[in-house]
């Protein structure tokens, strides 16, 4: 039996989503077909909503429904402390930890010379202006500890040289629950460099 064009189209669209292959896309589309119309309408509306209602905060470039976002507006947070991350999603990851009380700055990517992505494609200039304007005390560079994230961190550190601000980099090294026996030399070296005194 041939599949109706509408079903095929849905499968193709679903397959574009991260982590969804042919099989999953088929399962989802047949599930939606069988389900109540109301549920499907609800789903379609909520999907549209994220495009219509969700915007980027003009201060931190994080995703929000109000501008500036609730983190940037929160008087209880420390606005002289900025945590720099690659993607809007990273804000949620750090917020989930629950311990961080500063604000954020989303770069909207990383410097990647092999892909032709340079600092001018990111929000780096914005960060520089913000730091100069607000009397920021500390900038925490929380880009990924891979080659692109590392070089982006170094770029920003150099960019902020001369501004009166402390620039720190999140620790790199062994993951909690890891095992020294299986750690590679680069990770081990980073753990040694980033060692801290134990308070007794």
């Amino acid at each position, binding site marked *: 039996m041939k599949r109706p064009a509408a079903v095929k189209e849905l499968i193709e669209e679903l397959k574009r989503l991260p*982590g969804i292959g042919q099989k999953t896309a088929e399962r989802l589309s047949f599930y939606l077909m069988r389900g109540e119309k109301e549920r499907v309408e609800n789903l379609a509306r909520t999907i549209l909503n994220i495009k219509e209602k969700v915007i980027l905060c003009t201060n931190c470039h994080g995703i929000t429904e109000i501008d500036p976002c609730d983190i940037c507006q929160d008087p209880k947070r420390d606005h002289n402390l900025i945590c720099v991350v690659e993607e809007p999603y990273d804000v949620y990851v750090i917020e989930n930890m629950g311990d961080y009380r500063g604000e954020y700055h989303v770069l909207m990517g990383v410097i990647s010379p*092999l*892909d032709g992505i*340079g600092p001018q494609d990111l929000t780096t200039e914005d960060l520089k202006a913000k730091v100069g304007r607000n009397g920021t005390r500390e900038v925490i560079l929380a880009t990924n500890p891979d080659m692109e994230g*590392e070089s982006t961190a170094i770029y920003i550190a150099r960019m902020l040289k001369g501004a009166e601000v402390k620039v720190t980099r999140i620790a790199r090294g062994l993951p909690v629950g890891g095992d020294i026996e299986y750690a590679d030399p680069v990770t081990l070296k980073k753990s040694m460099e980033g060692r801290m005194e134990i308070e007794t």
Partner: protein
Amino acid sequence: MPLYKTQAIVLKSMKLSEKDKLVTFLTETHGKVKCVAKAARRLKSRFGASLEPMSHVSLIYFGKEHQDLYRLNQCDIIQSFQDIKENPDTYYTAVYFLELAGHFIAEDHPEPEIFHLLVRSLREAGNTDSSGTLCRLFELRIMAHAGYTPRLQKCIVCHKEPKSLWVGFSYSQHGIVCEPCFDKEPVEMRIKSGTVNYLKKFLSLNLNHIRRLKIPKDVELEIESITHRLVLARLGRELKSYPFIRQMAEMTRT
């Protein structure tokens, strides 16, 4: 299924799925090789930092012969070049080396000479203050290994050794033209014969000795316009990472 064991430089590392990575290697013995690294995105992955671009690694992979995608079995770091990556003055030059080598090493086409040039140049990048000179040497050498050595000994028209202070360079004919022959062969550029001597030296120099090479600034600029244009003429376009080297140098100056 055959198992392959070789050494390589990691060219690219991409997310493939929630757990896996797709890694492109420039290998010594099998040219460009793409491998799936299972569970490499896990925090406790057995591959650790070995799949980071630019790393010099020894690897074991398997799969059917001449297929597009292999499965990575083991990958160990020989040299991570972490110092290069953490220095903006050398990082962009090294990324340019990677990109350029990636253009000349194709899948299933081993280019051991280019591979070793890449490894040695990365090692040297961490030691030298003059990454500019190293960059010129790399460009010229990689062209030579790929079969595009410019003809620098004799004039491409009259086949005599030029005696004049100035010589011409023809990109279309890939060599030098002596002054008396300028009317017979259009030259795109005039350079000092001293510059030609440096180019010759670049082709034969042991990479370890690059630190001892002191090149006058004007000569270096002439050399750059030649070697980089040779690359452009060959590839037909600018490489993505090249403008970054300039941008970074300007930022350091200000």
